[in-house]
């Protein structure tokens, strides 16, 4: 199977979900090419205020999330900083897509990732809309020689993903979920071809299996499909986050490897629940340290009784 960035399929794009119009990323790139950062950054901050004022739904979701993390109503400044952190990450993605150097450095306790890189075996890579996580899949290729299939929802403003795909096309193949009927078969083919598949594990859309976990003060539903896939295809799961550190670098934090064993489905799934819950607790710790990290401008994962 060719491991190149796939052309977007002929399916209708979902409505834009990320803050910003469909032409926004191209506009940012054009400005970035001509404006010095000392001028451009304040302009981006101003643009973020405009976005904040014009996106009541995303603003409400941001407030709900920040309230869940901090236990109090967030200030306007905190909501702005949440939006601006996302804008700054999008800017970083665009710059990396256009050639800016960036490295993902494995954290000392990223044992699962280390083990996986050492073994070279295909795996399911679970990640989250947190910090620089989205970049780590792209960096795996050139840094570690790993080919990755990334599951993505095609939205109207996917320009950043497309240009990243163009830069890292030798290493990354997108699996667009806009055709959810065939998503699982696309994953099956990717794993059968010996590829590793990156899946987001924090949003419920397109997730066939969900389970409730303790997170931000409640038992909340999360996608759990990744572990079922691990059992079906007998491949390991590693969960990871990319967190910003110094300029040009991200720290890659990972769970230990979850490896299906011969204990049977029920026992494996019970172990998987513990694996996921443990990593969610780590994620929650990072979010409590810096709530801006989770780019959650959609409804918070619903609590269950």
């Amino acid at each position: 199977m060719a491991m190149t960035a796939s052309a977007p399929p002929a399916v209708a794009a979902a409505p834009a979900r990320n803050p910003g119009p469909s032409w926004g990323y191209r506009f940012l790139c054009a400005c970035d090419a001509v404006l010095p950062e000392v001028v451009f950054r304040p302009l981006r901050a101003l643009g973020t205020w405009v976005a904040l004022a014009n996106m009541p739904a995303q603003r409400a979701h941001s407030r709900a999330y920040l309230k869940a993390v901090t236990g109090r109503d967030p200030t306007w400044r905190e909501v702005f900083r949440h939006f601006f952190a996302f804008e700054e990450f999008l800017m970083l993605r665009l710059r990396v897509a256009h050639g800016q150097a960036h490295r993902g450095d494995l954290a000392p306790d990223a044992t699962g990732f280390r083990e996986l890189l050492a073994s070279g075996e295909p795996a399911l890579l679970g990640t989250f809309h947190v910090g620089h996580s989205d970049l780590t899949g792209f960096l795996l290729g050139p840094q570690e020689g790993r080919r990755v299939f990334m599951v993505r929802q095609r939205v109207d403003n996917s320009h950043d993903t497309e240009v990243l795909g163009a830069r890292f096309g030798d290493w990354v193949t997108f699996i667009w979920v806009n055709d959810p009927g065939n998503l699982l078969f696309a994953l099956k083919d990717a794993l059968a071809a010996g590829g590793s598949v990156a899946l987001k594990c924090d949003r419920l859309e397109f997730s066939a299996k969900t389970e409730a976990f303790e997170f931000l003060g409640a038992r909340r539903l999360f996608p759990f499909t990744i572990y079922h896939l691990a059992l079906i295809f007998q491949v390991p799961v590693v969960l990871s986050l990319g967190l910003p550190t110094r300029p040009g670098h991200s720290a890659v934090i990972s769970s230990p490897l979850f490896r299906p064993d011969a204990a049977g489905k029920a026992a494996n799934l019970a172990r998987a629940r513990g694996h996921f819950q443990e990593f969610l607790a780590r994620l929650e710790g990072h979010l409590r340290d810096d709530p801006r990290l989770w780019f959650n401008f959609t409804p918070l994962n619903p609590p269950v009784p």
Partner: protein
Amino acid sequence: MSDSLNARLKQLIVTTLKLEDVTPEQLADDEPLIGSGLNLDSIDALELVVTLEKEFGIKISSSEESRQALASIAHLAEFIRARADPSRLPG
């Protein structure tokens, strides 16, 4: 051969999907496998597809093909018989 293949498929479905309170004998040949009382979802269907591919050496490559194959036990048996090496079918 038809009866033995159907029986083998029923056995595989029950054991692969760990169906509780269902025995192979309770599955009717014309009972829809997806969207029926078995309450199977897309992951269950994928798990079944992977098992069938290993067991019979066939390839099911899309959700549309799987929907057709998994329409019922009878459909599945027909699908497998048309694609599998006869030596892999129960006698």
